[in-house]
């Protein structure tokens, strides 16, 4: 059963707020799921998911796909391209945290990375309508996974 959802992103950078927005909706929808947000150093992820077996990490994506598209990645998938997770040349990003956790044997048994394709990452911009819809759908889907053990 999904026990932790981490929303990654900057709440003040338009569609980069997809992760924190899913987290906020989930707090109301699924009190049984631990919900956290992360806008800083991703090395904290290793601590955050310690003790959890089924974790979802919600992030924004900028790959050129249609806005609102949901990219679904499994951290245990050997084909996971490192570049898919790279969002920063700075510090310690999600890619580093996942890579390091894999090397240290500290990945949760199931770790899904769900990234919502954004359209506008401007400072202070609201969520784009497509992203807002995707965020609602994703929050509802994750909430269902928290209530009953299901493979989605």
């Amino acid at each position: 059963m999904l026990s932790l959802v981490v929303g990654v992103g900057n709440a003040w950078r338009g569609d980069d707020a997809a992760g924190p927005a899913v987290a906020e909706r989930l707090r109301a929808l699924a009190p049984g799921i631990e919900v956290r947000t992360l806008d800083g150093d991703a090395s904290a992820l290793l601590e955050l998911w310690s003790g959890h077996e089924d974790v979802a990490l919600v992030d924004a994506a900028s790959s050129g796909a249609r806005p609102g598209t949901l990219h679904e990645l499994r951290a245990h998938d050997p084909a996971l391209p490192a570049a898919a997770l790279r969002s920063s040349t700075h510090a310690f990003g999600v890619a580093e945290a996942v890579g390091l956790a894999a090397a240290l044997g500290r990945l949760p048994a199931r770790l899904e990375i769900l990234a919502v394709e954004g359209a506008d990452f401007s400072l202070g911009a609201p969520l784009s309508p497509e992203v807002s819809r995707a965020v609602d759908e994703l929050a509802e889907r994750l909430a269902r996974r928290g209530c009953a053990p299901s493979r989605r």
Partner: protein
Amino acid sequence: MAERRIGSGPLARVEGEGALHVRLRGGRVEEVRLEIFEPPRFFEAFLRGRAFTEVPDITARICGICPVAYQVSSMAAMEDACGVAVPEEVRALRRLLYCGEWIESHALHVFFLHGPDYLGYDSAFAMARDHRGIVERALQLKKAGNALMRVVGGREIHPVNVRVGGFYRAPAPAEFAAVADELEVAREFALEAVGWTAGLPCPELEEDFEFVALRAPGTYAIESGRLASSGGLDLAPGEYGEHFAEHQVPHSTALHSRLRDGRAYLTGPLARYALSGDRLSPLAREAADAAGLGPACRNPFKSIVVRAVEILYAVDEALRLLAAYAPPDPPAVAVAPRAGIGCGWSEAPRGMLWHRYAIDAEGTIQDARIVPPTSQNQARIEQSLAAFVAGHADLPDDELQQRCEQAVRSFDPCISCATHFLRLEIERC
């Protein structure tokens, strides 16, 4: 002779976007260029017209690794412009925050960016599989630094609790209880880590560096001090511009800073250690001696050992500051604007960071200048690489490339800060 170009993949594990270009003709080094093509960032321009109180929050955004350095240098410059000296308690709390930044920035560099080079790994992940204990404990160490920044600064990246004149809120002593425990554990590891770095296989090299760093009476300078150099400079922040000049070079969006006589110089851990090594805490000093560092270290590949000593010092110093902690009350002193110019500096993890502002009587910024450590080091890094390549031109291309990357990383350049990624190219003609 046919031209050969080798290895144009991105040079990883440095901050920002850049490339190293090496041209060899008949085994002789013709040119070494550290190309920085990270787009210019125009911070100095868009600070003009902003309020003097905004500098710590705006300039923190120059870097996600060393925001505190930008905050502290900018606040010092504004306080200088306004003729205000902050109380000792404020200075001590800034130093404590800064220790957190040194710990997390150096831990990232030593164990995740630079360490893998010495053991032949191409990434920290690869190293983590074989050196699990070190990497796990390095994560704990970095976490202790982050925690310290969070308690003092409100959050670990781009702290929000600092302001010109002091802090918005002074943490109560009890808020430090958990982080003090983490730091105690971190100190044990930091001490071992000095020995670990000293044992890493390392090329022998001795360079003649002109070292430039801040120096403070009785302590290892971090948040304040006067500028010292191995050539005997002893300057206040306002005198920096008389002795140093920035130049544009075609291959870099970062300005190169040199001494007025044209010489390149080095700022950062090696410089600090050479100029203030006698002011380390006893524990850090003993560890440096046991690691065989001596009074000065002129081998850039050994900078990893000096960084480890500085981590130990920062942990030790943070614990000392915590033991003596008295919350500044009030947390900030009032700073009224006045027309004038102010300069401030501090020791960012990568080296000295200088700010200069001109403000009007209302406190509106008229002019801003920021000279980050990587700008200062860039010319010296090129010189160092040219010497290294000249001495190792017989190495096969892939090994030479790997060594050059390691050499660049030994200076821990923060290219994002200096521009105002790295690709490596060796050209043999």
